[in-house]
């Protein structure tokens, strides 16, 4: 038996482990484990009281079995018993078991907490250490409630042993991370800061972690830590390699502490006190200098520890972003690493340079390494490193090198790993758009993308190229010619057929003069691809054909023949069949004038927020590793927040309101759709009350969607795997009508389908909404429509909530979205001359009438798009009014039932700073405020 058992070894355990290792099959292992579990169960249940050693051994066996991946459902009580043993090793095993197999059984938690309390009070440093480790390992809210008050006292008490202080600091940190609300701030905080001066470097290390986390949430309270951290750091970096004895790691003085101090400093801006600031700059320079010195050891540990400090120092330099000299030095240092033989260093240099590229001081210096980075893309053997190289190229891209970088990325895409292709496609698409001076280059790039990696080109990318081509008439002819040529390839990607179909349908006439691309040739080319395409693409092509009927009357009969064929008119797909029938009919009965109107060229797209950028961000978005304790914490605060006093509900019920009409009919469906635990009565009350606890919280992303509707009236408001909600609305003066379309995306019926429009009490008095109920059953694939009649009584701030409840395949669904009925919908544009405008502008000069907002551009600053948005917002766009042609001014009147409010607006873009200043002047402060809020979100 090879068991090497040290300390208080357990022979029985060693034998068991060895048995398990000798099992030849999974079945044999399970059999052996079951035998052992039966044995342990009988020992625990037996009459004879077990001695501490046996208990420890069996608990340890259970732990081993659990760690092998089997479930353990007993033994917790025996483990808790071990906690109160006076033998250290027994206690230790008890704590280990509890830490690994936490059980939320409340009875047990009480016992565990009791044992911990005793150990904390024991004044035995080893016992205290075990108890603190256990709290930190479990880190639950229950433990925070029991100990968050006690641990700070232990931490700052004068007579606490150093090792206990270290454990206490990190234990408190864990509790603060999971339950910050339970950790009381107080006198102890200032004493914790002074632990940075402690003689024991282990204590300083632990305390620095704690302070860093606390300082992020309470920067003012921990401000004094900055100067202490700087002087501590300075003492470390200037010490000789042996000064710090045991804290020197492979000739590097206290690397862990140095990194933690540098991290703490990253919670603050550069120190204001010039002396402190100077000292810090010296430290950073020393660290950069040391990187150039010959290594004191050939061991990789030496270089890792040294460079770990260096990279953290560079992070701080980038964070401060204020010392051009240091930034450039950092960049040069990283440049050396780009060609280092250690893969790890090359990886980190690429990563770190990404952040340097965003500083104006070092952007140019980073750019000088472009060739090396491109080379890395081509030669690195590790996909992680290549990924970093792609990131860095993306970060260093600007107008001067965009063509080169995009070309290299396209080049790389041909051989890139499948795992990163989609991301590269998105990046290329974004760069090509952002830095396109010449849109023919943009079109070429996107078509290349489709050619090289068509499968990875998401819809967002090809939608975008079409939007851009439609919005820029200078590129339309080129785009038509290019897609026509690309479509000549015998095998082209379906995405190319989509783009080609759409563009030729709109602009095919621009190349029809050339006999090589005559109308018939264009049509035949597209139609040759038709049968190889999926249904949505075929549907798109049918629309192209009908557009051709308008563009090229000479091939009308050819197209009609195609539409008339059985494969179209009797197509099994409803959508295709319907299009064929309708288009054929349209082409037969409509006069040329009507055709020309119906099939007119698409108007420019009003908005241009890059959906590609959003997609890239989403790809990089949060993963799934979320701390359960944090979720639990959020939930519990939700619950507290939603408890509303009953009186509020009662009064809400008795108030007749527009939304009461909505619900009056709903007694039956509401009862059905109510989630099991709540009675129908309470649900009704909940729907009326402000807190609306039965109404689902707003769906994620609903704010984004909401903002998109401020400047437009139609589109998709919400979509998930089950349901799509589309909107169409029209407004005139103070009235409006909104059609809501609910589409069932599944093949299963929705039952008890109950959409409800909810207005808060405040909103009810200013906005009158009337809806008709919808059929409670929505068939799979079907769409139902609901009309909302809208009357604006007076100006309002909030938006109504649309709550939808239904049953889908046995599960209750409940979701809410904000309904985009906003004040600006009741705008009537007003044209006026420059003179009139400024006269009224001056009349509204009372400070309360003006609201101004200065904000950073969230979207590319494009004048045409901005104009479209202002018009979409509802006001008139007044040209040649502002003396500065770059500015935009608008005017309009908000109509409500009770009053009319004149509004003037002025938007001043600052291209250099990528900022806007928006000024609203209206006769009513609340209106200025609301309009400014709404419009600021649009740019």
């Amino acid at each position: 038996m090879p068991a090497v058992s040290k300390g208080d070894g357990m022979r029985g355990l060693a034998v068991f482990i060895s048995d398990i290792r000798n099992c030849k099959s999974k079945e044999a292992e399970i059999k052996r484990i079951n035998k052992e579990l039966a044995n342990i169960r009988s020992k625990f249940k037996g009459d004879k009281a077990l001695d501490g050693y046996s208990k420890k051994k069996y608990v340890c066996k259970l732990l081993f079995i659990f760690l092998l991946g089997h479930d353990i459902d007993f033994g917790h009580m025996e483990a808790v018993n071990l906690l109160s043993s006076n033998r250290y090793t027994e206690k230790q095993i008890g704590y280990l078991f509890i830490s690994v197999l936490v059980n939320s059984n409340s009875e047990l938690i009480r016992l565990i907490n009791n044992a911990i309390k005793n150990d904390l009070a024991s004044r035995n440093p080893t016992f205290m250490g075990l108890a603190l480790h256990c709290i930190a390992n479990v880190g639950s809210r229950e433990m925070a409630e029991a100990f968050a008050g006690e641990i700070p006292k232990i931490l700052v008490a004068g007579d606490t042993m150093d090792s206990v202080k270290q454990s206490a600091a990190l234990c408190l940190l864990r509790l603060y991370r999971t339950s910050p609300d339970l950790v009381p701030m107080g006198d102890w905080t200032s004493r914790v800061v002074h632990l940075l001066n402690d003689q024991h470097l282990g204590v300083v290390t632990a305390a620095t972690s704690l302070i860093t986390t606390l300082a992020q949430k309470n920067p003012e309270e921990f401000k004094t830590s900055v100067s202490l951290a700087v002087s501590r750091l300075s003492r470390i970096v200037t010490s000789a390699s042996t000064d710090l004895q045991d804290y020197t790691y492979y000739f590097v003085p206290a690397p862990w502490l140095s990194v933690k101090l540098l991290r703490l400093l990253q919670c603050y801006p550069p120190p204001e006190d010039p002396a402190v600031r100077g000292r810090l700059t010296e430290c950073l320079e020393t660290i950069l200098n040391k990187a150039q010195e010959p290594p004191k050891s050939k061991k990789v540990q030496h270089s890792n520890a040294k460079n770990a400090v260096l990279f953290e120092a560079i992070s701080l330099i980038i964070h401060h972003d204020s010392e051009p000299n240091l930034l450039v030095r950092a960049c040069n240092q990283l440049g050396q690493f780009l060609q280092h033989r250690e893969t790890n260093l090359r990886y980190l240099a690429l990563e770190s340079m990404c952040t340097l590229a965003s500083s104006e001081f070092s952007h140019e210096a980073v750019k000088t390494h472009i060739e090396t980075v491109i080379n890395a893309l081509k030669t690195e053997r590790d996909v992680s490193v290549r990924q970093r190289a792609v990131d860095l190229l993306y970060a260093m891209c600007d107008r001067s090198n965009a063509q080169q970088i995009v070309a290299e990325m396209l080049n790389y895409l041909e051989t890139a790993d499948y795992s990163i292709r989609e991301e590269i496609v998105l990046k290329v698409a974004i760069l090509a758009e952002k830095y396109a001076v010449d849109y023919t280059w943009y079109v070429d790039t996107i078509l290349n993308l489709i050619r090289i990696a068509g499968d990875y080109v998401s819809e967002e990318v090809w939608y975008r190229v079409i939007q851009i081509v439609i919005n820029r008439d200078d590129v339309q002819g080129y785009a038509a010619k290019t897609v026509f040529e690309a479509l000549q390839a015998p095998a082209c990607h379906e995405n190319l057929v989509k783009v080609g179909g759409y563009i030729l349908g709109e602009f095919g006439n621009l190349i029809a003069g050339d006999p090589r691309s005559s109308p018939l040739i264009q049509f035949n080319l597209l139609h040759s691809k038709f049968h190889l395409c999926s249904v949505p693409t075929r549907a798109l092509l049918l629309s192209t054909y009908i557009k051709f009927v308008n563009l090229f009357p000479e091939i009308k009969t050819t197209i009609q023949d195609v539409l008339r064929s059985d494969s179209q008119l009797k197509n099994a797909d409803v959508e295709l069949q319907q299009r064929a029938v309708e288009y054929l009919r349209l082409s037969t009965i409509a006069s040329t004038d009507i055709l020309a109107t119906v099939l007119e060229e698409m108007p420019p797209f009003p908005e241009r927020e890059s959906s590609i950028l959003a997609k890239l961000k989403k790809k990089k978005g949060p993963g799934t590793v979320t701390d359960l304790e944090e979720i639990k914490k959020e939930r519990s605060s939700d619950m507290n927040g939603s408890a509303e006093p009953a009186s509020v509900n009662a009064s809400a019920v008795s108030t007749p309101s527009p939304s009461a009409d909505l619900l009056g009919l709903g007694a039956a469906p509401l009862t059905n759709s109510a989630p099991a635990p709540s009675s129908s009565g309470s649900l009704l009350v909940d729907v009326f009350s402000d807190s609306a606890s039965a109404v689902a919280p707003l769906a994620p992303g609903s704010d984004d969607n909401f903002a998109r509707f401020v400047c437009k009236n139609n589109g998709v408001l919400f979509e998930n795997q089950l349901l799509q909600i589309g909107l169409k609305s029209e407004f005139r003066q103070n009235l409006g009508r909104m059609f809501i379309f609910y589409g069932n995306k599944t093949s299963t019926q929705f039952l008890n389908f109950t959409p409800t429009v909810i207005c808060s009490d405040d909103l009810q008095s200013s906005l009158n909404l009337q809806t008709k109920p919808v059929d409670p059953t929505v068939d799979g694939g079907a769409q139902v429509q609901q009309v909302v009649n809208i009357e604006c009584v007076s100006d309002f701030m909030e938006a109504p909530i649309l709550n939808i409840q239904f049953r889908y395949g046995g599960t209750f669904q409940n979701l809410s979205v904000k309904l985009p009925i906003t004040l600006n919908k009741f705008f009537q544009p007003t044209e006026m001359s420059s003179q009139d405008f400024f006269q009224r502008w001056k009349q509204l000069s009372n400070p309360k009438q003006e609201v101004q907002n200065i904000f950073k551009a969230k979207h590319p600053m494009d004048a045409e798009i901005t104009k479209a948005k202002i018009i979409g917002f509802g006001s008139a766009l007044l040209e040649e009014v502002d003396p500065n042609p770059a500015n935009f001014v608008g005017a309009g009147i908000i109509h409500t039932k009770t009053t009319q409010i004149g509004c003037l607006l002025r938007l001043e873009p600052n291209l250099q700073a990528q900022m806007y200043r928006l000024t609203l002047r209206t006769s009513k402060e609340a209106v200025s405020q609301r309009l400014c809020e709404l419009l600021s979100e649009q740019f």
Partner: protein
Amino acid sequence: MRQQKRKIHFILLFSRQGKLRLQKWYTTLPDKEKKKIVREIVQIILSRNQKTSSFVDWKDLKLVYKRYASLYFCCAIEDQDNELLTLEVVHRYVELLDRYFGNVCELDIIFNFEKAYFILDEFIIGGEVQETSKRSAVKAIEDSDMLQETVEEYMNKPAF
């Protein structure tokens, strides 16, 4: 201000055959989720070739790993955390194990898994490094072995 939530999320030790030898979680997750994560990560790391870097992006975290003889040591850290220092966290842990067991090998960790956990606890709490001095950390463990038994005592214990 950039959020600086930098800590180790979990540490896994597994063999070249993919057998998990030690798992330490500093984030609370359901058991099922943990098993899924372990499977995924073991597979990712074992499939990487020898000459590659020690870092892999994984979800919103970063895996930092190193192989010592037959065992892989892997830490999951936040994207912004210090990768090189994490490698040295691993190395320092290996040194601590080595100091305690004397020429530590995979079998030591299998048969004395509880000790491996205790040593880790002395070194790291809640995903943060507590004590970087090798002497202090090892001393703490050895103090706890005060009740060292003799070989006779050990052999006299029941073997079941």
